[in-house]
């Protein structure tokens, strides 16, 4: 009984260790494309258009509303301690240090990451990946590496757009609706905002971009059979990426801030 239990646990253990190993090798082999040209610039550009450009509308909308709700909630809280003047820094710091990178990453995962998984998964099931291998071409170079580069670049820029629209949303609520002087809102932001906050936010979005494209491409590349396999892979990709980003966010925050 005890032996069987041990064997069972051991089986599960090796299964997961092997998976982690495989995904690690997947990441390293994909990134190795950076060192072994040619780099497919055209494909990177098309991926940026897909992951980045096509997400800007969504990011602007959600960024603005996040900033607005932060301002509303923040104003009411700050009012109780009599420091409404600090509304600007509250909104800006929350966005730049935390909410911008995380929310942008989660939104882009839902929008573009899932599509990435589905696309690679279908290419896999349609044997397009095999066809590429038989042509002597490395599928990681054509499908995965461009997505990773584009993910990192796009998410960094999108996070900035999210932050800026968020701060503007906070301005609309704080200044236009609640009557805070506009000089106070922006003045206090520039007084309290430090370079470290901005750099920390950038580190976060860079790593989130890599995590998102890594997991989403990996799940697509090692997908299950048929339509069911593809849909499972897509769901798993979104869930795993989201969980991973939140956990990673915690560790990055403890280290850099």
């Amino acid at each position, binding site marked *: 009984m005890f032996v069987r239990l041990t064997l069972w646990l051991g089986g599960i253990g090796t299964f997961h260790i092997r998976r982690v190993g495989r995904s690690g090798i997947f990441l390293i082999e994909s990134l190795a494309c950076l060192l072994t040209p040619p780099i497919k610039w055209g494909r990177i550009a098309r991926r940026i258009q897909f992951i980045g450009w096509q997400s800007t509308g969504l990011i602007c909308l959600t960024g603005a509303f996040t900033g607005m709700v932060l301002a509303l909630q923040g104003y009411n809280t700050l009012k109780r301690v009599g420091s409404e003047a600090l509304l600007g820094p509250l909104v800006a710091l929350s966005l730049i240090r935390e909410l911008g990178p995380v929310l942008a990453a989660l939104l882009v995962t839902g929008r573009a990451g899932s599509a990435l998984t589905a696309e690679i998964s279908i*290419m896999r099931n*349609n*044997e*397009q990946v*095999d*066809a590429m*291998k*038989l*042509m*002597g*071409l490395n599928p990681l170079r054509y499908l995965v590496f461009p997505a990773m580069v584009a993910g990192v670049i796009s998410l960094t820029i999108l996070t900035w757009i999210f932050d800026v629209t968020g701060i503007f949303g906070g301005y609309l609520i704080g200044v236009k609706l609640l009557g805070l002087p506009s000089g106070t809102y922006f003045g206090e932001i520039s007084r309290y905002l430090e370079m470290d906050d901005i750099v920390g936010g950038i580190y976060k979005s860079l790593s989130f971009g890599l995590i998102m494209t890594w997991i989403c491409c990996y799940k697509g590349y090692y997908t299950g059979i048929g339509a069911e396999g593809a849909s499972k892979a897509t769901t798993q990709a979104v869930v795993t990426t989201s969980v991973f980003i939140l956990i990673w966010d915690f560790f990055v925050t403890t280290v850099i801030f």
Partner: protein
Amino acid sequence: MIRVENLKKTLTGTEVLRDVSLRVEKGEFLALIGGSGSGKSVLLKHIAGLMQPDSGRIWIDDEDLGSLRGRKLEMIRRRYGFVFQSGALFDSMTVYDNLAFPLREKTKLSESEIKEKIVRELEQVELHGVESKYPAQLSGGMVKRTALARALIMDPEIIFFDEPTTGLDPIIADAMLKLFGRCQQRLNLTGIIVSHRIPQIFSIAQKVAMLHEGAIVSAPCENGTIQTDNRILKQFVEGAIEGPVRYE
């Protein structure tokens, strides 16, 4: 020449290939038949080097496929043309770009030489006016023709067809078979074709191999019929319900 020796492969707990041995001589066209799910595609993928066997060997001429890595494996693969079951055309590219892709990535041909080659190849497979169409806009037969053209564009010596006639209506399917036969003859290709067009397939193949319960039963074919005493093979070819194999 392709030689497969005692190939074994277990996939997700099922022994798909139990003990497969097979030989295809240079310039020979082998018809691979067998029930659906019997492992025909898996066998082709092993020979193409896309899957690794649990045990057994595959020889291409004098090279042991299992021992090849990197550059050497690529050299072998360069001699292959593969027409996949689904066509495997890149659906983000037009027909023209699908054909141009391997040429652009793997050769130093100029854009005008590439164009010349593509026009010639499309003529060979009797396709006209589809260069700028996307795979999703093509009919089933056109997809197979495009896939054939793409498989031939790198001038392979060995060609694999995985169910190139499945899903086509009988008339187009037979036209396709004849086209494959002609291409194979003209280019003197060594090939394996998986198809359920019985008996039409026997008039383009020189040998038939049936994959049954993870092993091969083979027989030569001549003048469009096969010569065999094997009861399992006979039953399958005649499409009989009664016989050594029971269908539920």
